[in-house]
């Protein structure tokens, strides 16, 4: 009976899940679409908040029975709890945003019942996934999660791109669960148990170790979107409805990371090559993910590629941790895993923020192509500010949360180099420069996005731009989180530290993360903020005194500049994209007037995904070609069927009698 002990908080968690599921019932029971939706969404929100509360409670007061609940099916260990709270934290603003997003659809007489159903299923299954302790249960949650995401994704199924993208997504999702089957079968076969809590197969002693590791890396790598397996992301995320794509990019990818951490738990200590593999893949993903992003004009596609980049950064942290565990250096494990975990949280926050922001823009302008945007800041300043905050955070620029996690990872490089001398410093220095380079690229990309979307003057006439309070609430929550983690990282780092200490480094405590002079950083950032504010006040004074006015910008001969004169996203990023042209599959088309009389000149560029266009599509074509060769098997002429009987009997007899 001890195994079904329910600590109060975990009971609360179960209740919250039940409440969330209740919303499905609500939406189907109430007839009036609008009322039903409002009620259901509120119920969902309530359940989610309860869930978050319960998660935090469980984190603060862990239950004596090790939080094994429900016949060891569910377990609330610190790692799972951490991811659980990330999910709930991000889900809350998303649900709030639903109020405004889905209302548009209801106004357009479009039924949202099914979408809400699938969205709720997705949320619940994801929460169960990270708390699952039973492998089969884990798989069930995983599959339900993928399918619910798929069903939600085809909300606007009339569109062609939606069908294509969802097709990609579901194929990949189904393929990877097959890999997961094998992974867990082997684990089950080795340990004779289905329970996560009883999986401890030290890599070295395990003959199956490498196989398990590779399987996990592929399966979870696909889910997380590491570089060779990222191809489904930029197709799937743009087409999903905004709340879903936000949740997909913010959280669902993280389930892959969660899986990697679990795998490490099962196999630790891992040999060093695992670390190197992860590092290489991650650095590759980070650099080229952001570089692809730089070449995109579809804002959601761009953000999807940025997810690849950030997953890469997280992966770098994990790789560092692996190396640490291989050399038995808890310090490095702390720093690496700490950076990874914290960046997971941060990325979840600012990526959701950015997706919701871009979703609002998409709703109003009806396009995702940033080349047609601009000047939105004059329509809705708060949206612009929120998006700016998100961009600063995602480019890892101080003083926001993105910087904190990248800072930890940087420190990790230096620490590794100092701990393990000989050739490590060079590699680490390469990584340092690589990560710095990624940061630079990200900054370039997001200055581009911000400037082209929000600043300047509109490139296409904006008829209406209306936002409502729910948008601002959800954006506000997320932006606030970015700021808080940025300015006051200490508690969050402490949380991460405790997670690692209790569930990843089996006991060896180290305070390296905690005493990293976070107070210094908070102080500096606060100073920056205060100083800017003070100066701003002074500036206002100064303007009062010496006057200020508005006038045309310097037109270099034209009496005033037109919106078409603005720098476009293509031209902004062109110089950078031409460098890895072949990898990005970066095409540009320049038409300049070479006659004496200037005619219209054009410059346009776009980039396809390498894996997608150069590898997968050809392979798929080949498959189709092969299959066409075998269609005779489907014929229905009776004479052939009879002939088949005879032939089959002969063939089988040959097998039976000539088999050696």
């Amino acid at each position, binding site marked *: 009976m001890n195994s079904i002990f329910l600590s109060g908080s975990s009971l609360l968690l179960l209740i919250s899940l039940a409440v969330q599921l209740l919303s499905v019932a609500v939406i189907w029971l109430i007839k009036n679409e609008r009322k039903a939706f409002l009620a259901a969404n509120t119920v969902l929100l309530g359940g989610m908040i309860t869930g978050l509360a319960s998660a935090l409670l469980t984190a603060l007061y862990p239950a004596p029975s090790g939080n094994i609940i429900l016949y060891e099916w569910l377990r609330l260990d610190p790692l799972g709890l951490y991811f659980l709270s990330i999910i709930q934290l991000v889900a809350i603003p998303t649900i709030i945003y639903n109020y405004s997003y889905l209302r548009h659809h209801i106004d357009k007489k479009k039924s949202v019942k099914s979408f809400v159903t699938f969205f709720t299923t997705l949320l619940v299954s994801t929460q169960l996934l990270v708390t699952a302790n039973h492998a089969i249960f884990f798989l069930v949650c995983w599959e339900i999660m993928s399918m619910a995401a798929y069903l939600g994704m085809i909300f606007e199924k009339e569109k062609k791109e939606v069908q294509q993208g969802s097709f990609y997504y579901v194929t990949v999702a189904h393929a990877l669960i097959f890999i997961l089957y094998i992974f867990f079968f082997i684990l089950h076969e080795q340990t004779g148990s289905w329970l996560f809590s009883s999986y401890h197969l030290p890599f070295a002693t395990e003959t199956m170790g490498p196989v398990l590791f590779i399987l996990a890396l592929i399966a979870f790598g696909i889910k997380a979107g590491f570089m060779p397996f990222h191809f489904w992301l930029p197709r799937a995320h743009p087409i999903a409805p905004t709340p879903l794509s936000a949740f997909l990019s913010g959280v669902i990818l993280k389930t892959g990371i969660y899986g990697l951490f679990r795998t490490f738990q099962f196999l630790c200590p891992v040999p060093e090559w695992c670390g190197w593999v992860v590092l290489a893949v991650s650095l590759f993903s980070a650099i080229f993910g952001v570089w692809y992003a730089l070449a995109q004009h579809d804002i959601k596609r761009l953000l999807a590629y940025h997810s690849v980049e950030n997953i890469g950064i997280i992966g770098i942290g994990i790789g560092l941790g692996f190396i640490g565990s291989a050399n038995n250096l808890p310090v490095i494990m702390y720093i690496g895993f700490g950076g990874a975990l914290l960046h997971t949280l941060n990325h979840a926050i600012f990526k959701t923020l950015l997706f919701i922001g871009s979703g609002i823009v998409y709703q109003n302008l009806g396009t995702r192509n940033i080349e047609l945007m601009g000047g939105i800041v004059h329509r809705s300043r708060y949206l612009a500010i929120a998006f700016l905050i998100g961009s600063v955070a995602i480019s890892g620029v101080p003083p926001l949360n993105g910087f904190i996690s990248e800072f930890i990872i940087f420190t990790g490089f230096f620490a590794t180099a100092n701990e393990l001398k000989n050739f490590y410093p060079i590699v680490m220095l390469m990584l340092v420069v690589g990560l710095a380079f990624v940061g630079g690229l990200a900054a370039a990309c997001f200055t581009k996005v911000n400037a082209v979307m929000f600043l300047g003057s509109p490139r296409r006439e904006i008829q209406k731009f209306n936002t409502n309070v729910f948008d601002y609430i959800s954006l506000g929550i997320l932006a606030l989180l970015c700021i808080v983690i940025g300015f006051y990282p200490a508690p969050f780092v402490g949380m991460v530290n405790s997670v690692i200490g209790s569930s990843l480094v089996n006991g060896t405590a180290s305070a390296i993360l905690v005493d990293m002079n976070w107070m210094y950083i908070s102080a500096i950032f606060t100073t920056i903020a205060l100083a800017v504010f003070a100066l701003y006040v002074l500036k206002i004074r100064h303007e009062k005194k010496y006057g200020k006015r508005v006038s045309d910008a310097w037109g270099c001969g034209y009496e005033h500049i037109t919106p078409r004169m603005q720098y476009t996203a293509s031209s902004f990023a062109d110089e950078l994209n031409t460098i890895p042209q072949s990898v990005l599959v970066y095409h540009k088309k320049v038409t300049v007037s070479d006659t004496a009389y200037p005619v219209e000149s054009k410059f346009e560029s776009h980039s396809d995904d390498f894996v997608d266009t150069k590898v997968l599509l050809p392979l798929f074509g080949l498959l189709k070609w092969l299959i066409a060769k075998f269609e005779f098997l489907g*014929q*229905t002429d009776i*004479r052939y069927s009879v002939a088949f009987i005879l032939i089959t009997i002969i063939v089988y007899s040959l097998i039976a009698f000539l088999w050696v």
Partner: protein
Amino acid sequence: MENVLSILFCLSLFYLSVTSRVKAYVTVLRVQGIILTILLVIPFLSHFSVYGIIIPATMLIVKVIYIPRYINKVILDLDIKRRIEPTIQQMVFLALVIATIVIIFFASQLLSKSTPLNVIPFASGFSAIAIGIYIIMFRKKLIVHVCGFLVLENGIFLFGTSVAFELPMLIELGTLLDVFVVVFLMGIALNRISSTFEGFEVAHLGRLKD
């Protein structure tokens, strides 16, 4: 005695493979039915029993009298053209048949070394099955397909007698009944087909493509 009858059976098969008239098929079926009946009767000549005679009697009724007449009736009703339309020349077909029969005889010769079995009825039954399949494979007319199926059935019976194998009478009758019903249903289906498709060749059965 058995062997002689089996050889006769084989001859009927040869005849099948050269003839090009539908009627001939029916006649051959009759002949085969008679042969089978005699084969069934033989064991009971020595020790006579009422039960033993039932099966040959049913055989006689079903295979010799009823089915051929039924087929004839179908042919007349639908006035099927007398010629079977083969899809390959008769000579090729004959060659094929001969080759098959030869192979089968050799094969059964080999097999008879491992288990005691009287080769000739066995082999001729077997070849009847093969040729029934051939007839279905290389003829266009559905009625001919039915005949091919019946030849196959006869082959199986001969085969059964050759392996000296007695089923309980109930089941024996059941098998016969089944065959009978199958043919009956096929006849009905043919009627339908001829009324629906204005013709009854495989060519007409091409709707179920996908």
